[in-house]
């Protein structure tokens, strides 16, 4: 099939960006979205033009590196699918596709479709862990964990840190990302000692990074390629409230 792409091109963080139109021909329906861009990039290189920069690595939907806004939707039209796992058979001959980077104040553009998501790392560093220095662990079976809690913790821990939740949120909030970690660790017995300092510290880091506040629009969970449930945010709010009460 033949497609028209409108791609955000921005040479550097400080430069101005714009949408540039490219015609791509002979696209196979079996190609992944990123492979379609690879083919275009090969053509651009041979023509002496700058290829389109985009982040990607595992190309199997788990590393969280890839992500672009495709026709206004983070990761494109397929539900629960990262950009690298989106295949061209979901598009039709003659389509025009607009491709933009994640848009958020806290995710500055580095080049073209590549953005800086290091704010996520700093939110984790603020408290998204259980302090268990190597060598200090008790025997694994000394603390049983009810299966339901373990399963719910796993569901929240499946977050890949791609940032689609932020890109989808009208407020540019990273609350789903933060809540996923608060939920994962807060559901496990090992996570209890730091449960309330964790939530306060992570939310403070979230706000300091320039992410917006959460107003429960739910766009984040709809865009999440891993199906992190919106309930994680309720859990975060409850823990946060309790933490505040405990302090007084």
């Amino acid at each position, binding site marked *: 099939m033949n497609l028209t792409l409108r791609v955000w091109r921005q040479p550097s963080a400080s430069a101005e960006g714009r949408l540039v139109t490219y015609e791509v021909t002979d696209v196979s329906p079996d190609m992944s979205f990123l492979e379609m861009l690879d083919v275009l990039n090969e053509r651009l290189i041979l023509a002496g033009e700058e290829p389109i920069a985009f982040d990607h690595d595992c190309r199997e939907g788990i*590393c969280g590196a890839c992500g672009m806004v495709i026709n206004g939707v983070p990761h494109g039209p397929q539900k629960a699918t990262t950009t690298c*796992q989106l295949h061209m058979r979901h598009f039709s001959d003659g389509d025009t596709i607009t491709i933009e980077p994640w848009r958020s104040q806290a995710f500055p553009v580095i080049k073209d479709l590549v953005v800086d998501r290091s704010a996520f790392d700093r939110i984790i560093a603020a408290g998204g862990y259980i302090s268990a220095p190597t060598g200090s662990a008790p025997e694994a079976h000394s603390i049983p964990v009810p299966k339901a809690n373990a399963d719910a913790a796993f569901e929240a821990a499946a977050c890949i840190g791609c940032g689609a939740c932020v890109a989808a949120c009208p407020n540019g909030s990273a609350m789903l990302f933060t809540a996923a970690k608060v939920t994962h660790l807060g559901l496990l017995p090992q996570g209890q000692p730091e449960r309330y300092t964790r939530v306060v510290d992570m939310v403070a880091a979230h706000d300091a990074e320039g992410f917006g506040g959460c107003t429960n629009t739910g766009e984040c969970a709809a865009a999440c390629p891993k199906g992190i449930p919106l309930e994680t945010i309720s859990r975060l709010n409850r823990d946060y409230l309790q933490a505040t009460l405990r302090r007084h």
Partner: protein
Amino acid sequence: MSMFTEGAPIADTRAPDGPIETRWQQRRFSGKLVNPANRRRLNIIVVGTGLAGASAAATLGELGYNVKSFCYQDSPRRAHSIAAQGGINAAKNYRNDGDSIQRLFYDTVKGGDFRSRESNVYRLAEISVEIIDQCVAQGVPFAREYGGLLDTRSFGGAQVSRTFYARGQTGQQLLLGAYQALERQIRAGTVRMYPRTEMLDLVVVDGRARGVVVRNLVTGEVSTHLADAVVLATGGYGNVFYLSTNAKGCNATAIWRAHRRGAYFANPCFTQIHPTCIPVSGNYQSKLTLMSESLRNDGRVWVPVKPGDTRPPDQIPEAERDYYLERMYPSFGNLVPRDIASRAAKRVCDEGRGVGPGGLGVYLDFADAIARLGREAVAAKYGNLFEMYERITGEDPYKVPMRIYPAVHYTMGGLWVDYDLQSTIPGLYVIGEANFSDHGANRLGASALMQGLADGYFILPNTISDYLAAGPFPSIDPDHPEVKQTEQEVRDRIERLLSVNGDRTVDSFHRELGRLMWDYCGMSRNDAGLRKAIDQIRALREEYWQRVKVPGSGEGLNQALERAGRVADFFELAELMCIDALHRTESCGGHFREESQTPEGEALRDDENFSYVAAWEFTGVGRPPVLHKEALEFSYVKPTQRSYK
């Protein structure tokens, strides 16, 4: 000119003597310690943030060392350990099914086809138990049973149930545990993190590894970081084949540059080819995706009896199908080990009986399982895998048999290390898939995660203190001639890649190299093919430096330039892999030499002549490398011929 020369054998691996179960304890006691106050004056560089690198950097930070951690990804959490599906082995014996450290040790040595070091493997089995404790304490959400205890499952090459898992995302959950421990140390100020930064060379001063030259991938700035010791945790080199299950960015540059500076490269030809991957669909294909081998529990593998049969699978009657694994290996059937299943698939495709576009695929058919168990039961077991398959291929495996084909998955070879995980360059340590240590000629499923974490959490932090106790080493002036020269070489190389300005893209060369390696140094190898490959690799490498086109400049983000440097190193490594495969005229594990097979066509080892680790010394590009042999001794496990008939 001969392909290689032979040098002095490796006499000492620094493994303690005495009963095998006491060696690790002995080593820890005999190693020198560094007192806590001195640790913060010692600088350690850790390159790579996968399971091995992240766990090592976090643990060294906890101990109070001054650590710098580097990764090429935008965040340490994205290293390719994240993609490991199956699980992690540990000899906990929670099932009371006869497991023990001794048995995990035995299974691993045997699974590696008797080409690994007994002392190392025993230690790995010992430490496996502590890894699970550590990960649970960090909050890794392993699968649990209703009673709240940890669940386990069985994996290939074992008769016990010792594989701990977190659905199909075990690697992700273990890596996030290590990443969170690392972030905690970054916050504490013991670790400084450099994401989007790629190591391009190793700095060696007065015979010791003293630093790395890196390129900031965002600004393009080239700089040197100096330290008292350097740890490489940069993963495997499967991407030399272009198409593999590795992430696109996985590369051999860090270990190859260290090899060029004097670190020996061990068993480079030992690569693992996984039998159940989604086949290539077109020449635009950028990577291959693994389908868990657990599918072979219920799926039946077949191809048409007649070559060139292009009928759709449902129109091929039962009598005209060849369930070749069941026919050739009646006792193991579809569950033969990875290397055997991969070779058999290649054989039937070479006979012209492969299915799907290009004839490079075999069917993995669930029709019988669905008829026997019902669609729902099959969905409960494999639903997520079926969805993944459908997402990629657009075909519904409940209705049409899956098409699968082998793909490069893991590299057992890597930089040579001693018992302490130190390379032949003092002060350079190598951990995880980047070293060669524990898997011999074939890795068992669920053992890569175990090894990465054993190295990073428990082994390296203990052994490196013995080296560092002699430090801090004399401080090095950033204008030291060795430093200046290494940095200049890096800049020159970047400049050279940019200035060729030819008419072929980096990827077009990489594809061609990958195809060569797959054809001649892949699942099946022979003398003539390997010699041909070496000639063609050399010619293609020449052409690369004449015709490659790298757009843009060295300043700022330039992804084509990043790839160009990695592919240049793959060209050199590819040649060494072929030389290693050529010299090892026996078959063992994943290395199958057509000249060395049993009358039934199975791998035939030659213990008399090849019971050694081949450690190669670099002498120059295109020059014959020097082979150093480390003899392998088996005092606890007696080498036998594997049989799956």
